[in-house]
């Protein structure tokens, strides 16, 4: 697809991503309004995958900014590579001009999305990890679509406004000014029917018995009391993979309530212990 019709493009899903209609509408309207889209929801509901899916479906490049708690805004914008410059000035074996600082400026993830000639997708993953100041400052940059490089006193302006997807794990509330500038969607944990569709996409040849009983077992296990981290879609997919890989495994085991490989689903040791106990008493 060429970039001219980017603005008219509609997102309708991707090969490994099951899109519900509502979310598709929201993505399309957000792209048309040129606003960031804030996605909240439990881990494992496919927030990050959505950006990958849009990128795949629309043939746009994806730039991922993984937010870390210690991150400063400038890290996401650009870096001044002083080390290379020092090296160049001492040994002088590169073609760079040492007196020109601009040659030592490297773009960060947000910077890259601004200078790109094509419209790209910028995924800002797990924004809630950073502190509030980072969030507000970043939104300023994304709002203005420009930032300054102090070292060379130059303003970088976005050539093509990127599609911005921001994800948050809903642990913390984001600040009001931040929310005011985003479109918002909360992805609920998939219903069993939806989960069935998702699994079919990942396992096209899965047997109906295994599909039925694994989904039933999975949703029962999510209900276990006092589990700290509930298994999510990712864990379920891995679990089914594990079950399929085991030559001794028989679907009837699941129906009888014998659940192997619980460690794939429950990754914290107290959770695992509880799950083992509860699973022994469970019938599906």
């Amino acid at each position: 697809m060429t970039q001219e019709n980017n603005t008219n493009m509609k997102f309708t899903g991707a090969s490994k991503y099951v899109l519900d209609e509502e979310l598709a509408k929201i993505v399309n309207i957000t792209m048309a309004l040129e606003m960031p889209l804030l996605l909240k929801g439990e881990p494992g509901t496919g927030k990050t995958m959505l950006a990958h899916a849009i990128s795949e479906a629309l043939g746009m490049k994806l730039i991922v900014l993984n937010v870390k708690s210690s991150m400063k805004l400038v890290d996401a914008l650009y870096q001044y590579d002083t080390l290379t410059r020092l090296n160049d000035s001492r040994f002088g074996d590169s073609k760079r001009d040492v007196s020109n600082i601009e040659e030592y400026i490297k773009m960060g993830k947000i910077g890259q999305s601004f200078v790109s000639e094509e419209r790209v997708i910028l995924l800002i993953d797990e924004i809630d990890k950073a502190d509030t100041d980072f969030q507000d400052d970043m939104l300023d940059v994304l709002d203005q679509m420009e930032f300054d490089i102090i070292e060379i006193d130059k303003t970088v302006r976005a050539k093509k406004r990127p599609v911005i997807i921001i994800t948050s794990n809903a642990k913390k509330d984001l600040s009001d000014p931040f929310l005011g500038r985003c479109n918002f969607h909360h992805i609920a944990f998939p219903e069993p029917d939806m989960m069935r569709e998702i699994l079919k996409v990942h396992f096209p040849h899965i047997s109906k018995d295994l599909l039925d009983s694994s989904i039933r077992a999975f949703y029962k296990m999510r209900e276990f009391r006092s589990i700290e981290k509930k298994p999510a879609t990712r864990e379920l997919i891995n679990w089914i993979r594990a079950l399929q890989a085991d030559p001794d495994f028989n679907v009837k085991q699941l129906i009888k309530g014998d659940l192997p490989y619980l460690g794939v689903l429950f990754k914290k040791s107290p959770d695992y212990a509880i799950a083992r106990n509860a699973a022994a008493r469970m019938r599906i």
Partner: protein
Amino acid sequence: MFTTFFYLLRQVGIPVSPTSFLRLQRALSMGLITSIDDFYTAARSILVKSERYFDLYDQVFAHRFEGAELKEPEEFELSQVAHAMLEEWLKDPKAMADALGIDEESLNRLSPEELLQYFLDRLKEQTEEHHGGSKWIGTGGTSPVGHSGYHPGGMRVGGVSRNKSAVKVAMDRRYRDYSQEGPLTQAQIGEALKRLRNMVPTGPKDLVNIDETIYQTMKNAGEIEIVFERSLKDRLKVILAIDNGGWSMDPYIEMVQTLFNYARSQFKELKTFFFHNTIYDNIWEDPPRFKKPYPVSELARRDPETRFIIVGDASMAPYELMATDGSIHIEERSTLPSYERLRFIADTFRHSAWLNPKMSSEWPYTRTITMIREIFPMFELTIDGLEKMVAHLMSDN
């Protein structure tokens, strides 16, 4: 045509900003929205910024565009409506009425559960304000429900509690949802809460910042200048338990709300629980203290380094603290006295504190405050108190 929709959303308490409304207009004028379904999703994603309001939005939307009626609240929700109505009627309690009820004797013998049911039934029947008499709810009278009435072992409904130890409180203020925004007008408290920012652990300065070292070295014209930084420590986990029930906390709720709003973005993990007066077998994750109980014994599984902060006035009848079945809630039965539960929490989390909105000069006059202070270090909900609390929670001992 959508302006009424906008105001309706604001009216039910969804914080919709005019800017976002204009943005919706823009989406409409761009021809992006072609059907009512489109409008539903688009308007929600543009206007509503939190999943907490999704349910409300659905109701308003249905009401405005589908002609559906706003759903009548039922069952437990009725208690909210009931209370709101009662508050209106009972504002000005008259003197005790003379009229005696025909069924007073039988009502005297009702259990609290039956009384509650009776109360709700009467509420459903009642259509107009009524004072005195023995059947309808109103002020005065001897019907076992009502304010300022006389009933041995009856319940208190609404009005100001006289000695802050009613036998059974029938109506809770379940609708006060702290997780929503409160007015941040109290400049002083806002200032005070900035002191919470000190609740960040600091490591020793033993980490070489290589980037900074190189930068400074170059600024120094090649003379080596090593820059050390404090090593990062993980942010704190905090559990906040808020007393959000009853009338005794009423005057302080706004202050607590401010504190709560601020605290949200501060920590690595912030878990908030709610209780009324004191803690028994369960604390609740939802502000109405109804749907999501959390067993206190489960707290043992949490990180013992978690800072446990309780916000409450610690004022109650002594038996609520010391008796095995001390809760004033008819539906809440306990196996251990609250005193033991509080001790358990204090033993589990070595960094714990109790924030009290009452001033410390008043503390000696309430017995339960003295008793709770034996368990938890108590601090005033003031700038100074907060500062002291932060210092206490951050100290190594």
